[in-house]
């Protein structure tokens, strides 16, 4: 009775705790180029022991000597349980020198291989049955590269086989998705637009003797716009990339507050001009902060494994496209309005004051009211 109860409690305790190592994973990467596939498989040494038995002296420890000695059996096992084929015809796997790699959950046996396929590999079938019947939760995390296209997949359990089309760039859809996300964000991220607009509104004007004068021709307006947009783009691309790739990170309360402050500064600069000819520098300096703002959106979406760079570039491009669309829509109108004194005396100053007012509310919200 007591024993039965203890088992009971055991089960209950197990349930209430969520503690665990990561489950059993193997890592397979394949680089496809023509008939020859270069690849590698990484199998945890613990899993390799279960598969073929490595601990020759049964002391519960696996030494490099034991692993090395069992390499022929291990490669034989893998050749039987990792099957690559093109259109039903098997590729011949040839394993090379065994090495060791350290990962989160211990040491792994790392085996590079070359697979020779009969047809040039446009479609690749992969069958994976390692640890079948021994650990049903074992999975192979697959990364498949064909040219610039990287695809990923999970093999094992109920899904022992996968088919990949190497010709169709499956990542194109990812690219489009992130591109759209970037465009959407610049449209919904009104704070970034207000900042940019504050810097662009005076681009069609010149500041002379404490007065705004219309530019005589399109050239200086175009040049000024180009400088500001380029500086802003360059700056936020840098920090967006750094943040998205986890190189640098700033607390969001800080970045969001400084973004709000940057709008106030840029807008007030139109009313009480201090910086007139070098607004591109403001665009660059604060653009760095805005990049961190973009990054938080990207962080919410996450970068897909194996296509981080592609997705990041797509997202950034999306932002540039969205931003460019706004510039192209606004600047011709503003250029056309430049000779109208109402633009210089009313629209620019009062528009800027309104922008600064909105941004001030954001600043207070973001800096003071946000508890964390």
């Amino acid at each position, binding site marked *: 009775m007591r024993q039965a109860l203890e088992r*009971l409690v055991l089960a209950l305790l197990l349930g209430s705790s969520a503690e665990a190592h990561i489950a059993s994973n193997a890592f397979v990467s394949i680089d496809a180029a023509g008939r020859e596939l270069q690849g590698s498989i990484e199998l945890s040494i613990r899993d390799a022991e279960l598969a073929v038995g490595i601990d020759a002296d049964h002391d519960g420890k696996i030494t490099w000597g034991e692993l090395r000695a069992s390499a022929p059996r291990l490669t034989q096992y893998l050749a039987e349980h990792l099957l690559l084929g093109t259109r039903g015809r098997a590729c011949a796997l040839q394993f090379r020198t065994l090495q060791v790699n350290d990962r989160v959950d211990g040491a792994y046996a790392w085996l590079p291989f070359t697979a020779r396929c009969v047809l040039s590999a446009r479609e690749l079938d992969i069958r994976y049955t390692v640890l079948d019947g021994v*650990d049903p939760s074992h999975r192979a995390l697959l990364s498949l590269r064909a040219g610039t296209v990287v695809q990923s997949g999970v093999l094992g359990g109920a899904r022992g086989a996968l088919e990949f089309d190497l010709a169709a760039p499956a990542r194109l859809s990812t690219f489009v998705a992130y591109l759209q996300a970037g465009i959407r964000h610049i449209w919904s991220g009104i704070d970034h637009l207000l900042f940019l607009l504050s810097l662009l509104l005076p681009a069609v004007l010149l500041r002379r003797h404490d007065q705004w004068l219309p530019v005589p021709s399109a050239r200086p307006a175009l040049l000024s716009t180009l400088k500001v947009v380029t500086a802003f783009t360059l700056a936020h691309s840098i920090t967006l990339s750094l943040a998205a790739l986890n190189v640098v990170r700033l607390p969001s309360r800080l970045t969001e507050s400084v973004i709000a402050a940057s709008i106030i500064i840029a807008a007030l600069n139109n009313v009480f001009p201090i910086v007139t000819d070098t607004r591109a520098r403001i665009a660059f300096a604060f653009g760095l902060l805005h990049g961190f703002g973009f990054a938080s959106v990207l962080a919410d979406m996450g970068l897909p494994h194996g296509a981080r760079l592609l997705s990041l570039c797509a997202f950034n491009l999306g932002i540039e496209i969205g931003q460019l669309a706004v510039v192209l829509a606004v600047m011709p109108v503003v250029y056309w309005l430049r000779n109208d004194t109402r633009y210089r005396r009313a629209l620019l100053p009062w528009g800027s004051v309104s922008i600064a007012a909105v941004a001030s509310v954001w600043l207070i919200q973001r800096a003071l009211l946000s508890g*964390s």
Partner: protein
Amino acid sequence: MRRLAPRAGLTCGALLVCLALRAVYATPHIPAGDAEVLAELPPGTQHTSAGARELARNRLDVALPLARFYIARARASGDLRYLGYAQAALDPWLARTVSPNAAVLVLAATIQQSRHDFGAALATLAEALRLEPNDVQAWLTRATVLRVLGRYSEAASSCAHLASRADPALEMLCAQTLRALTGHLAAAYATLRDLPPQSLPSAARAWRDSELGEMAVRLGDEAAAEHWFRDGLALSPDDLYLRTAWADLLLRQGRSTQVLQLLAGYESIEPALLRIVIAQSRRADPRAARSRTLLADAFAIEQQRGDGVHRREQARFLLDVEQRPDAALVAAQENWRVQREPDDALILLRCARAAQQPAAAAPVRQFLQQQGLQDVRLEQ
């Protein structure tokens, strides 16, 4: 795509450099000598155990103890691989459509529950109880699953089924932990505190301590909580749940050094590593960066696998370590859809506040109000 390439080139070039700079903590290598030990095999993971596993295919009296052994090892070590081995012992028996066995189903449900696959666990338990309506273990496991899901009244009726079938002290423990979550925290705490530990089977004593410790945390009595956690760990040093619960208390008190002492040697277990990273970051420990990379990689792997065992920890990692409140909020919301323990409510409230999205916390507030959950941490 090609037309855009020149413009993307500059950005991507810069990014490539960044990627290359990002610390890659390991590369394949050839060890220095044959004697170098690469891995130590935990109990039951030698190839030689293949015989027992083979036997388990045809003999239920081997399959059941083997699965129980692996489940017990999973609990003691926090090693998720053991759950896979347990499942392998049960799978041939689950596949048989004729004469299904309640004990097999209950163990399968325990594995599903440990993987936070609560819906599947409930379905499996329902099947087990249909075959064996008096299965005490099935009722108890069902109560636990329903409690994690926040379905307290159903959980309470599962506990009630224990009354006539099991030890009264066990039934009381089951019922009081639920009362504590539904508006009677102080009363339930007093009842359990006054329950003599001797009246419980020895394995349940640490469980009582862990429940009392958590209740004391929710009551705001940190000194008492520490007493129960200490007591529980003395009884059951392997109890990772107790250990991390205590670590959370220490973190709340700003005692990072003690957290690192308490969790030393548990770095390979994700929930423990999470607390370690938080403590290390607070102390500006140089090991923090590496721990953070390890944990981020472990979460990334889980995500790629599609596993959701550590959703709550992931949200907390994003909030407290990565300082990405928006992403943390998404993870916490996803977690709340799956499980509703006080800690799940807490992390969602904290994320909603940090991300300045008070509306996101509405479902939690509504739940807390409906259930009458008391927790001083939620009021801060």
